[in-house]
Each structure stands twice: as structure tokens, then as C-alpha cells.
């Protein structure tokens, strides 16, 4: 079989391999080289030490991890229910898909600004709360003095902005589950919850894995939403990389931050591959 195909598969792979090598692998190697470039141009750990010594490093790492841990479960619960709504073939199914997918078309920064107009002191949320008589004075949501409230704002904005991408992956996964399986479950008198738990979720495992990996990598890169909502009040790893690259004009330390984000992404990817193995029979 392989012999008959000859060089064709390699030729087909070549463009994407070149693309990845030029636009992904090469810059990645360069970034690592920058991160480990010593003051005299040779190899050295001074940039990494400077990153660890950066007064914002600890808070940036913790905030980023906190965001990953908080945002992803919320997004998966939401995306799963949204995908089930779409897959239930309700009236106006197409409309639901478009409404849910709307945030996909909005840039990260624009989404952040939209949420600023909601959370700012004179924003929509406080206007509504005051209008309903729930509070007398505007509540300050975006203050560095109440970091958990600030993180909460970012979590909500991120959940709104980036849930649809997971939903799309899950909808595709749901639609690939053969109807016979669900009909068989009906025959045996399975409840809806049992169908989700015993049939849909196991069959969705490959889609869930892809979505989890994709979403976690993106969560480690969270940036513009945080800048818009929290300003200098919340440090995240990508924000620190940007600050070192543009404000402080030190590409080496910025590269160290970028390298750290890459390592965290790789680690989480491996983790999901190990924790959620996809077995052949699920794809039958």
C-alpha cells in the first residue's frame, strides 16, 4: 500500500512542513536562543534569572494559572450545553449557532473594551444594579485592590469571548456520533442524563481532547482582555512578555517569558494526551 503511493504523501506534506518550519519552528528556536543569550553574546541564564527576579513574575504566573483553572471548566460546561442545544435540532437551529458563534468574530481587545463598558464604575452593570435598587453607590469591579473581583471580570469576559470555539468543535463531534447509538440507548430506556454520561461524553472524547488542548494553550496566552479590563492592575505572563519587549525594550527577557508560556503549553498538552487517551473503539 505504502509502496504504491511512492513519494506522493511526502509531497503533499511538504508545503505544511515548510510553513511550520519557517513560521513556527525557526522563530521558536530563535526565541529560545534570545532567552538564553548571555550578556557577552554566549550562552547564559541571566535573562531567565532576571525573569524570575522580576517583581511581577510571581503574580503573573499565579494569575495566569488561576485564569486557566477558572476559565476552562466554565467554558466547557457552557460549550457543552450550547452544543447540546444546537444538536437538539430545535426550531431555528441555525440561528442559535450564529448567535453563539458571534463572539468568535470579535477581536480579543474589542471584546475587552466591550466588557470595560459593562464593568466600569459608570458602566452598564452598575447602572442596572442602581436602577434596580440593589446598590446605592457604584461598585468598583476593576480595582487592583480587589484582585479576585478583577480576575472574576476577566473570567466572565474570557468565557463570553472564547467559549464559541470550543462549542464549534463539540458540535462537530456531536454530529459525528451515529444516531444508532442513541436510538439503542432509547430502546434500553436510558434517561437523557444517562445518554449524555454513557454515550455522548465517551464518544466525544477525541473532540474534547482537541478542544481542551487548544483552549488551554490559548488561555496561557491571555493578554488583550486583561489589558483592557485590568490595565496595570493584573499581571499575566503574556502581558509581561509584551511589557519587556516594548516598554522596557529588552527582547531577551521577553523571550524568556515567551519560552515559559511555550513550556507550560507543551506540558498541559502532554497532560491532556495522557489523561484523556482516545481509544480506537470510540472512533469506530
Amino acid at each position: 500500500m505504502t509502496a504504491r503511493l511512492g513519494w506522493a504523501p511526502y509531497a503533499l506534506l511538504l508545503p505544511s512542513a515548510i510553513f511550520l518550519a519557517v513560521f513556527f519552528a525557526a522563530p521558536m528556536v530563535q526565541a529560545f536562543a534570545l532567552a538564553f543569550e548571555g550578556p557577552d553574546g554566549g550562552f547564559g541564564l541571566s535573562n531567565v534569572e532576571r525573569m524570575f527576579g522580576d517583581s511581577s513574575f510571581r503574580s503573573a504566573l499565579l494569575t495566569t494559572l488561576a485564569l486557566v483553572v477558572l476559565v476552562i471548566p466554565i467554558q466547557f460546561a457552557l460549550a457543552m450545553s450550547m452544543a447540546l442545544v444546537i444538536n437538539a435540532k430545535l426550531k431555528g437551529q441555525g440561528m442559535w449557532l450564529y448567535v453563539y458563534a458571534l463572539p468568535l468574530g470579535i477581536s480579543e481587545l474589542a471584546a475587552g473594551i466591550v466588557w470595560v463598558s459593562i464593568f466600569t464604575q459608570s458602566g452598564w452593570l452598575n447602572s442596572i444594579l442602581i436602577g434596580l435598587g440593589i446598590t446605592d453607590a457604584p461598585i468598583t469591579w476593576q480595582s487592583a485592590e480587589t484582585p479576585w473581583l478583577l480576575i472574576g471580570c476577566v473570567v466572565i469576559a474570557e468565557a463570553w469571548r472564547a467559549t464559541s470555539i470550543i462549542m464549534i468543535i463539540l458540535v462537530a463531534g456531536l454530529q459525528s456520533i451515529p444516531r444508532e447509538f442513541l436510538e439503542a440507548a432509547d430502546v434500553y430506556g436510558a434517561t437523557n442524563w444517562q445518554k449524555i454520561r454513557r454515550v455522548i461524553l465517551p464518544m466525544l472524547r477525541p473532540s474534547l481532547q482537541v478542544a481542551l488542548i487548544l483552549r488551554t494553550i490559548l488561555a496561557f496566552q491571555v493578554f488583550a482582555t486583561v489589558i483592557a479590563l485590568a490595565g496595570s492592575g493584573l499581571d499575566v505572563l503574556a502581558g509581561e512578555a509584551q511589557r519587556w519587549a516594548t516598554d522596557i525594550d529588552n527582547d531577551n527577557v521577553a523571550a524568556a517569558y515567551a519560552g515559559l508560556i511555550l513550556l507550560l503549553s507543551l506540558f498541559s498538552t502532554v497532560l491532556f494526551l495522557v489523561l484523556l487517551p482516545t481509544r480506537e473503539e470510540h472512533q469506530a
Partner: protein
Amino acid sequence: MGSNDRQHRWRLGAVLASTMLVASACTATDDASPSAGGTDGGGEGDAGEVVMISSQLVPTEEQETMRNEILADFGGTVEFIGAEPGPFNDQVRAQEEAGEGEISIIGGLDGEFSAFAADELLTDLSDVADELADLGINEDYLELGKLGTDQQLYIPWMQATYIMVARNEALDYLPDGADVNTLTWDQLTEWGANIEAETGERRLGFPAGEDGLLHRFFQGYAYPAFTGGVNTTFTGDAANEMWTWMQDTWQYVNPQSTTYGFMQEPLQQGEVWVAWDHVVRLVDALESDPEAFTAFPVPSGPEGKAFMPVIAGLGIPTSASNPEGAKDLIRHLLQPETQATTLTSVSFFPVIGSDLPGDLSAGLQAEADAVAAQQEADDALPALLPVGLGEEGGAYSQVFRDAFQQIVIDGQDPSGVLEALLPNLQAVFETSGAACWAPDPESDGPCQAQ
């Protein structure tokens, strides 16, 4: 040029810089009608295509204004490139390395030109300065533009500074006997406390957000006002006193300040009642409703009323492909009409002594009056923008933002934080080789942070 000359220049510059904004603000307030004096330089003939790179007027809106209004009457084609400090430096230097290039005119800050001049990237513009003598460009600024040499390395272009603006309802809560024009920083704290006590809201405001200019507040306002210096008084009792004052004041500062970039927006929305910021970043509030806001000079500290004049200039690189066109553009930008357009469209104040045509709008008038009052104050203490830091400018400002974060937001003890940050500050001077600038005393060789 010895380094002493250069240091002397900074000191001189700082003292002189202050006098000019006064003059310009006064001029701008004159009700002079048609353009008086001035040569007939720009706008005539064809200067060909001129490429201008500028570290000023970078926001998209300001770039549009520059192209469509300020450069509209120029007798040639100008390609205007607004660039952030990093790319700005890179592009100017890259062209120099290439030998010749399209960039024929540079718009930048005094401190940026001093770095270019150190590498001999600028041509002598003495002939242009002589020719424009009738415009009455301020002598002190022209002196500053010589960068300690006998050549005119840049021509002053426009200027700005930072002031305070309050919503008028805040004036009811001024401390007893306090005059808004002669406040002290302690009275500002008291004012904030009164507002908080009466309204239950923290309504002072600072631009502490990601793109806010809070670091300039410490570099040009708080530090000099409390310590009489910046870099040579970075630690010590007076510095501790300043930071303790900031910690106390922060109880009355809107906690959302860490998200504010331009203070005009929270002022307009009423989230903040009293704010400090750059004139360009306050003008929208004053213009939108001049009756609702009061512009006033910054308060004074124990060492005086410190403030930071921002002076932008125009220079021609030695590698320019169209130096004659660039000179025409300089003539155009300094005409009274163009200086007036610059003031009304982007809120940078003029550097020429000639009367400007037309009236000022109420908002700009309010700013001009506040600027004048600030500089005419008996205890005025001008502090220069960082000089000669080059690419280390960001790292320099980061030291002050780190100090703010750790002392004010995290509530740490000032003296410990400042001692810990001192090596970072010194590293900036060692890397850049920058000497101290006013109001710090002159230094031989790199500034010694203390």
C-alpha cells in the same frame, strides 16, 4: 563640547524651559487677530516629497490631524510616520547606517535628540534658526536645541506639560482656606479625604493604567516637589516622606485608577473628580463642557511646585535625501497659522513668541491659564524629561512603576522597596551612560543614583 557644557545645558534648560511655556501661554491668550510678524517661509513653492518620522503625535487620531490639518497647506507632499520610541530610534539609526534614506525630518523630544546628537546624526540648522528669528522662537528653547554645541541641532517645534483638572462640584470640598491655584500636595490629600467623607466615594484620579503616564508623575512632579531631585534623591528620608504621602493619598484615589490611560474619560464620566495628567490627555474633558471643569496648576511640595515641561523639536538627519524640503517643512510648522492649528487640533502649545491668529476655545484657554499659573508660580521648579537614556528610557520608567506597585498597591515599606530598586536605577545610568539632569545636580559621567 565637554560633558560639563552638556550638564550645564540641562540645568540651564530646565530653568529656562519653564519661562517659555508662560510666554507661549500668554501669547496664546492674546486676542490677536491677523498673523503678526513672521516670515513667509512655508506653504510657497514645491518642496517635493518629504518623509517625516515623529515620536510625537503617534495616536492614530493625532496622525490623521497632522496629515489633514497641520500639513494641509504645505507646499509639498509629506509622508508622516508616527512611531513609538522603540521603532522611532531603530528607524532613524537604521537609515544612518545605510548612509542615505528617505527620512528627511525628525520630530522628537529634547532627550531623544540628545541621543542622536551624541552619535552625530544631526545636521546644523543655524541658517534656518536665523531665518526664523522674526517669529520670536524662545531663546531658551533655541539654546536647548543646540544640545551644548555651537550648532543648532534641532529647532523647537511645540510644547506641552501636565496639569490638574477638577470637576466643579469638587471645589465645594476644598480644605478650609485653600486656594485651588496655590494648593500643596498635602492639601490635595485633605481635599480627597473631604470628598470621600462627604460623598462616600474615592474621587481623586491618576493615570496608573497600562498606557497611563503615572511614571512621569513621580519623575517630574512628586519626587522633585518632595525631595528637590529625582535620581540623586531616590532613597532617603524625603523620598520616604513622598511615598508615605502617596500611600496616604491613595486611600482617596479611585481604586479603578490602575485601568485609566487618559484621565479625560473618567473625568467626563464623573468617576473621578480631581485628576493629574498630560494637557493633551485632559483637553477633551475641558472642551466637551468648559463650564463643568476647572483646570489648575499642580500643587506644591516642600521643595516647590515641580512640573515637567515637554519640549518637542524638529531635526534633519545627516542621511536625509531631501534636506531642502525638510527645511521648508520646518518653516511651515513654525508659522503662526500652523502653530495655532497645532494648538487647536492636537493641544500642543506653540514655541513662537508671535501672536497667534484667532481666539482660543474655552477649554484650551483654561489649560493655557493653568499652564501659565503653574510656571509663573514663585516656587516653580521645572524638572526635565529624562535626557540621554536612549533605549533605556523604558527600563528607567519601569523602576518608578515598580516602586508604585510595591509601595502603594502592595503596601510595602517605602525605604526597603527603594533600597531594593536602587541597583536597577543605577543599571539604567551605567548602560546608557546618561548624566544627571535637572533638577538633580550635574554629574561627571553617568548619573549616580542615591
